[in-house]
């Protein structure tokens, strides 16, 4: 890279002008992204006081020590990884399946395509209430239906049971988010040249072979990006989980409860957020290099 000093005067002016153009964005990123991140890291070394007039107390790495020796944290960490794995894999499989179906011509396809988007565009709070209602013990329509098929016991309260609330929330998340995946995959599917399939037909390839050797490689980077995006989003997913069942104790819920319930521990909460940030950055870096090959 050429040093600033070595540039001609015109190029220097251009460089300054370039900085002037990007400076609003740099300032905004600094104020709204960098500052909160750095302030959070700073707070994680303090015992944050809530009492008016009493300042924060520096505790060094004590918050991290407490956090990393707390079994509840590791338990929530495990649940969160499982939640991400189930929801990302689930929503991609469902989204892919639906996109492949919707890529075929059939009467009324436009309406069906629009209807599929419903879970994604409906507000979280209304869909959460709908799920709580349909899964109520005794009177919930889905509970009644599933119990008629012998799949579940009509007296079960699956949403509020701490043992399986996490699974209910995972299913909800797949249902809520697969339309986004479907939309992305469908748009890519439509841009795959038909020539490939025609050539494969001439070679006598069957449907599965065409899917495996043409469709899937063409979708590789879309799927790779979707796994990355959904992975990040679901790792931090709060509102869907918290609203549906407070018993699904994923890390964001654990963080929220540490920060805001009883006598809150904002220092430890900041340490949790920092650990999450570091873990996520490491995972993203490896993923981007190995899978997306950027």
């Amino acid at each position, binding site marked *: 890279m050429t040093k600033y000093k070595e540039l001609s005067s015109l190029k220097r002016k251009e460089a300054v002008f370039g900085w002037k153009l990007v400076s609003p964005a740099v300032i905004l990123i600094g104020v709204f992204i960098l500052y909160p991140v750095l302030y959070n890291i700073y707070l994680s070394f303090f015992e944050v006081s*809530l*009492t*008016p007039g009493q300042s924060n107390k520096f505790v060094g790495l004590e918050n991290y020590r407490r956090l990393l020796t707390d079994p509840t944290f590791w338990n929530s960490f495990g649940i969160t990884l499982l939640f991400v794995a189930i929801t990302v894999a689930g929503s991609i499989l469902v989204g892919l399946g639906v996109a492949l179906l919707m890529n075929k011509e059939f009467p009324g396809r436009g309406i069906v395509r629009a209807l599929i988007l419903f879970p994604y565009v409906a507000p979280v709070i209304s869909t959460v209430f709908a799920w709580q209602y349909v899964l*109520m*013990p*005794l009177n919930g329509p889905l509970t009644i239906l599933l119990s008629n098929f012998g799949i579940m016991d*009509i*007296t*079960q*309260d699956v949403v*509020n*049971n*701490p*043992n399986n609330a996490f699974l209910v929330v995972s299913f909800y998340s797949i249902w809520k988010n697969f339309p986004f995946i479907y939309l992305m995959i469908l748009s890519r599917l439509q841009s795959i040249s038909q020539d490939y399939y025609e050539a494969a037909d001439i070679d006598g390839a069957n449907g599965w072979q065409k899917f495996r050797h043409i469709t899937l490689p063409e979708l590789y980077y879309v799927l790779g990006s979707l796994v990355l995006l959904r992975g990040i989003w679901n790792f931090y997913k709060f509102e869907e989980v918290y609203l549906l069942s*407070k*018993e699904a104790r994923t890390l964001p819920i654990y963080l*929220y*409860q540490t*920060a*805001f*319930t*009883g*006598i*809150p521990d*904002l220092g430890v909460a900041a340490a949790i957020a920092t650990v999450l940030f570091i873990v996520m950055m490491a995972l993203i870096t490896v993923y981007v290099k190995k899978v997306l090959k950027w």
Partner: protein
Amino acid sequence: MKKLLVVLLVIFISAIVFTQSITFWHTQVETDRQQRIRALAQIFEAQTGIKVNLVPIEENEILEQIPRAVQAGTLPDVVEGGISPILLLGSQGFMDTELNAKIIEDFGDVYEGVSRLMRAPDGGYYGIPFHAWVQGIWYNKDLFEKRDLGAPTSWYNILTAAKALNDPANQFYGLVLPKKADAYTEQVFSQVALSNGAIPIDKDGNILFNTPEMIEAFRFYKELGKYSRPGFTGVPEALNAYLNNEAALVFYSTYIMDDIAVEEVQKQRVENFNPQLVENTGFANLMINVKPSSYGEVVGLGILNTSKNKDAAEQWVKFLMTGNNYIYWLHMAPGGMNPTRSSIAEMDEFLDNPVLERYGKDQITTIISALDTVERFEFVEGQIIEEMSVLSGNFVVGRAINRMFANDWTPQQTAQWAQEEAEKLLGK
């Protein structure tokens, strides 16, 4: 013309700058209640020129809002909340104990029984008792008479009735028992434990979840669960189940009184109004095992130390607790919200209400008088146990019971879990 515009602008700007305003957090989140509070705030503003910013917050979430507001510098001037949030705010030094005490003194007629629940250990009061309810068992008297069952006051009678009346084949259950990890479960369990002489923390700060009395209370609660309507019931489901005639007994506060008695209120919950329900419903306001115990909640108003408009806050508190304003507030939930000032309780205007009339002056007086004997985990031998608000804020009791039913834990396992959780939270 220009001059006039300038004058108007100056008036407008000074009106904005000099208008005092206070922020009021309250836990009355229902739409009809919010309308009433808005009306009161408007009258107050018209009378005093002080604007009140109303912030409704769910009862279960008020404790979570406090630290967020502390960090953001958006704490209210006045807060309305139950004993736990008031105690938590008080113990963290947020409450103006002197000003709260002065207001109680100025009124001069606040019931001693309820104000002791808000007394700060170092003098003064964390809050001013605003309104109060009593919890007990509401039950179908007809069924009890038909089966010749005794009133559900003793553990024996409660269990016998729940067992005898439980008929799951016909979708009718002995009782509705809360099992969610929330405040409602803690309230119901508190009465069970207290009637067995069990408390989670004693006055020396020892945690007592693993005592034989407490384990016995968990055992009884679990036994009741066998005859309870399925589900990890919360407040709305419990109310609906009783009004829908799906259960013979329900643990509920006096807030149920309008749902039972008033057609319009009942119809908001269930399809058909049952006019006989009010006559057929009995109320057991105490529970006995080794000792009698009644349970209730006092909702207080507290002025915060951080308030910059303490005069305005004081005026607002006094406005809310005076004459017709007070009665207008209390009538938003007749029976549930009982006055804490004797002069108001005796006013004819207070009893002039379709719900209170149906229950009659005697019953209302009985309910209010029960407040003098109310027991809570937060008070032991006249001393406030501030640490209890940490356990309540983290729903330790609710979570213990939730896990006991979900994992089929024994009472001993449940007690042990609660003990360890409490020790962890309190750093012991």
